[in-house]
């Protein structure tokens, strides 16, 4: 029972990380229709930057926030390159973000190296009902909850958030009422960078990060986001939590090396199931 609780809570913590990543994907896709393959890279950049800043002597908190800001700037840059040129289709932009991921590999290996890095998060562990749970896990859960609440307020209550939603639902109408759709796209990318960066900073103490960790991060983030059709953050959160817990259970009770297989198979099943419920006509009309 204590083992179960341990797996459950660590699964939820990792799931919250995936959820932050997935919400970044959702924000960017909602506003720009672009699937951002560089989303995992934001987390890697933030995780590695935070580690370096901490070892350079910055206090906890400041270093993490600075790293998230760096990730936000990276997001802005990715958005500029991927969608800045007029007439770039979303599928072309997807391939551009893939290319930016490779460029980032080169830069990451140059700045850091190709070994996994980690840094100490919130140290220590708490024992609940016989289960030993790292305090960092609780931090991840709390921060993710706060961020999701802020996102809900941002999209529901602020003008900027509403403008972003307007671009998502009808870019033409948004332009007609004076919203700069291109700028909103860039804001979405920067916000995606911040969310990805937050995931990276929170997860690095739990699982060391290296330059090519982004493939696993993006697969998990995408798996979660695709559950809500890449448009609904709430469903993405539920998907991410399911995924995180499922992976932790597989790793705990069965074998760690099968956890990605489970995640990917789950994602494929959901995608195919969803696709079979939509007709081709609906899908082409939505394009």
């Amino acid at each position, binding site marked *: 029972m204590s083992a179960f609780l341990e797996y459950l809570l660590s699964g939820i913590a990792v799931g919250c990380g995936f959820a932050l990543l997935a919400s970044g994907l959702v924000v960017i896709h909602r506003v720009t229709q672009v699937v951002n393959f560089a989303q995992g890279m934001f987390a890697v950049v933030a995780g590695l930057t935070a580690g370096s800043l901490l070892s350079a002597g910055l206090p906890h908190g400041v270093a993490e926030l600075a790293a998230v800001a760096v990730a936000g700037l990276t997001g802005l840059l990715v958005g500029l390159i991927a969608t800045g040129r007029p007439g770039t289709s979303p599928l072309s932009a997807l391939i551009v973000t893939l290319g930016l991921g490779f460029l980032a590999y080169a830069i990451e290996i140059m700045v850091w190296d190709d070994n996994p890095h980690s840094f100490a998060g919130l140290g220590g562990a708490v024992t609940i009902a016989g289960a030993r749970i790292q305090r960092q896990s609780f931090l991840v859960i709390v921060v993710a909850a706060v961020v999701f609440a802020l996102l809900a307020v941002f999209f529901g209550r602020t003008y900027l958030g509403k403008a972003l939603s307007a671009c998502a639902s009808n870019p033409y109408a948004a332009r007609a009422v004076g919203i700069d759709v291109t700028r909103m796209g860039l804001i979405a990318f920067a916000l995606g960078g911040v969310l990805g960066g937050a995931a990276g900073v929170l997860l690095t103490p739990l699982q060391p990060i290296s330059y090519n960790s982004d493939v696993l991060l993006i*697969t998990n983030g995408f798996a979660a986001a*695709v559950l809500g059709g890449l448009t609904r953050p709430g469903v993405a959160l539920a998907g991410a939590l399911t995924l995180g817990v499922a992976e932790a259970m597989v790793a705990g009770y069965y074998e760690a090396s099968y956890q990605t297989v489970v995640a990917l198979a789950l994602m494929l099943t959901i995608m195919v199931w969803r696709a079979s419920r939509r007709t081709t006509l609906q899908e082409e009309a939505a394009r």
Partner: protein
Amino acid sequence: MKRSLAARPSAGLVTAVVVAVAAVLAPVLLQGSQVSVYVLLLLAATVVTGLSMLMGYAGQVSLGQGSFYLIGAYTAALIATHGMPTWLGLLAAPVAAAGIAALVGVPLLRLRGHQLAFATLAIQLILLSLAGRQEWAGGDIGLQGVPRLEIAGYEFAGDASYAYLALGALALVALITRNVVASRPGRGLRALATSEVAAASSGVPVPAYKQAVFSLSAGYAGLAGGIYAFYIGYVAPGSFPVLQSFEYVVMVAVGGAGTVWGALAGATAITLLIQLLNNVGTMDGMPAAAPTVLSYAVYGALLILSVLFLPRGLAPSVAAWWERRAARRRPPPGDSSVPSPHDLAGTPS
């Protein structure tokens, strides 16, 4: 007018002949390790021809084409290491890859666009993870000591013989692709890439055609994988990284999707560039990570620049530029004589 009409096909023909002669002479003229680069280039071009057909004609992006390369290589290696005739392994490699693609395609091809791209990537990640856990496939170490390929008593022993084998495979694949895209089903494919609904309503059997092209392109990758297994002599999960699948997409994007020439140009350009960078990166005084850093940077930069600035790819853009230049020199011909970029696909090497 008459002269210009006669001159245009000859420009394409001359290029084709030059490329073909160079390709046949290359194994004799190249030395040592250059031949093995050439063999890998030909194998990549074989895979890329299939992917280019899938992307350019059927409009489907596969980020996991390497998984069919892996299936072909493992099939050939398993058959050969179990004492069965090696030619059987070579035959079985494309068949197994195409067969598995047909099976996987049933659920997968319901997806389109970014979803299909992601799903194919997932398939490869799953396959790599599973291959590393199977006893009978040698686990993470893989299958060692694959015997040399032997067909009707002739043993493919040297690098040059594999170069000709790979060249033959590429020629076969280019010929099949050319005939497929020039046929009535080929036109149906082009139609479904634009709009599946419109294609279906004009009588194109959309799911069947998508399946067929997906399987065919997987078969090409399987064939290349089979030759790879015999040439290198061992297969392991580590030989088929996800990066390789991305590399094929880069080659298609740089060369130009939907043409055989584009596939050849893309595969050649990227392979040579990576080789060059590898040589630069391993020079004295370079840091140990230099080759990796350089190749990642170049993949990324090429992919971004070609998608943004050469959206049609190298081969079609060069051909269009050549056409414009030629058109400026002669009096404007009738509109019907301006060839579409797809006409270039009609010339195999």
